[in-house]
């Protein structure tokens, strides 16, 4: 995947997270912000993020790989998604 597509994918994930989980009055998050361990994203709610990724990129991520650690930053999420994009 080229750099441009990678950035687009990261922005797509980042915007979804901001829209769904982050309040306007909270500080800005980046690709490397710890989402789950810092409490921005409820670890119990990350299933909706998984469903979004699977539908958006038409992939199937095994539940065993969709761990809170793998979902902790936008960069990690994109890495995980890239493993399953054909």
């Amino acid at each position, binding site marked *: 995947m080229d750099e441009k597509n990678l950035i687009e994918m990261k922005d797509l994930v980042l915007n979804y997270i901001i829209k769904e989980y982050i*309040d306007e*009055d*909270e500080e800005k998050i980046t690709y490397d912000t710890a989402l789950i361990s810092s*409490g921005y994203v409820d670890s*119990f709610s990350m*299933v909706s993020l998984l469903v979004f990724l699977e539908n958006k990129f038409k992939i199937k991520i095994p*539940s*065993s790989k969709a*761990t809170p650690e793998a979902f902790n930053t936008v960069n990690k999420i994109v890495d995980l998604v890239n493993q399953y994009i054909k």
Partner: protein
Amino acid sequence: MLFNSIIYLLFLLFVVITYYCFPQRIRWIWLLVASIGYYISFIPIFIALLGCGVVINFFLAIWLAGIPEKKNSGSLILIIFLNIILLAFFKYFNTFFPDFHIHLTGTGHFFPSDPVNKMILPLGLSYLIFTLLSYHIEVKRKNIQPETHIGYFSLYLLFFPRIAQGPIERPQQLIPQLHQIHPFNYNLFSDGLKQILWGFFKKLVVADRLAIYVNAIYNNAEEHNGTSLLVATFFFAFQIYADFSGYTDIALGSAKLFGFNLTDNFKRPYFATSIKDFWDRWHITLSTWLRDYIFLPIAYYLSNRLKKESYLFVSSQKWIYLIGIMITFTICGIWHGVGWTYLIWGLLFGVYLSYANWTKDLSKKIRKQLHIKKTSPYYVFYKILLTFILVLFTWIFFRASSLSQATMIIGKIFTSSGPVFFYSPYDLIYGIFGIIVLMAAEFKREFIPEHWTILYNRYPAVRIAGIVLIVITILLTGVFDGGQFIYFQF
């Protein structure tokens, strides 16, 4: 050999000194021997049970790892079933067969203190089984390779600082440390000693002092008015926290003396701003275990099955959350014990979390309408207070001896008032003193971690003065016959 005993301190001192006398490559053997010795100091016969469990699970994991990932689900289910059966047998036997007595009075050398005539739960079995299940699940998912050294594997499960009450360590966290060499590390060692000291403060000064009042009220709840019951419930909230987190501090501190870092179970839970936040801070190794191995698999399974956007005008995501969280917290309640009180305690958290999830958008909208910033100190204070009150309500069920007693206590709290009961003002005063010191220390760590540091101050005189002050406080106000830790029974 309870953590809050002199004999444990002597045991720890002896094991630590000899540990550093041995060559590094064989220190694990000494730790394993010490761990077995520690376990034998409770009820010796159960070490045989644990030993068999360790050996069988060692080979089961190697067998599981040899099966391809797509075909190993059935094998994992069999392994989980075997372990759960063992746990359920000991944990729930008395509940389901209250009249069945086994007579072990002839085995005097196995039960040197009290001959028993009913089933008792082997110490730490719940924690051991949960640790084993996480190990097998990680092996099944191919996230780790099974440990092929039975000595290290045994030490992973039996390591004495964590055998009795956890933390429930993930294999990725502890097993690699067992393979490493641990030369003496002064900073880690001194950190461990301070953590042990603070653990003793929590247990002896706070938990066991509050226990005197809580037991006096709850053991005769019918005789007391609502005000006293409310005060006792408030005290119990701090008793159970100081008891369990005190144990954890002693466990983590003890492990640090040998160069090991265990996972902390608590992160100032009474400063949580929501119930979800509370469970991110309370009994963390259990809550993350439940999240990763119960909630998320259920949620993933349902998200693949519920294909429609919504059901009964509610989004399928919200239904998935509700079902997953209610099952998870039912298991959380049952893990603590059989009985309606534990079940309702768990279910209450499930209801709280589901309510918060279902009304998330509404509360966001209300907050916007009222122009309340999420970071406003008043709003944060309100959220902390509300969360604490909700948690306080659940502790009534956790502490009450039966559901009828819990409902009676709740009824009295809301309907009858009067003067607060006390037979000795010292227990009340010392109890409140302990809570204030504990919460002041937690407040500092939560909101101003860089300032007012005492035990980690850059000036040695301040550090020493802090240590002396804590020791004197423990000696003057501690309770030294308080008995075992609350979570030993689970």
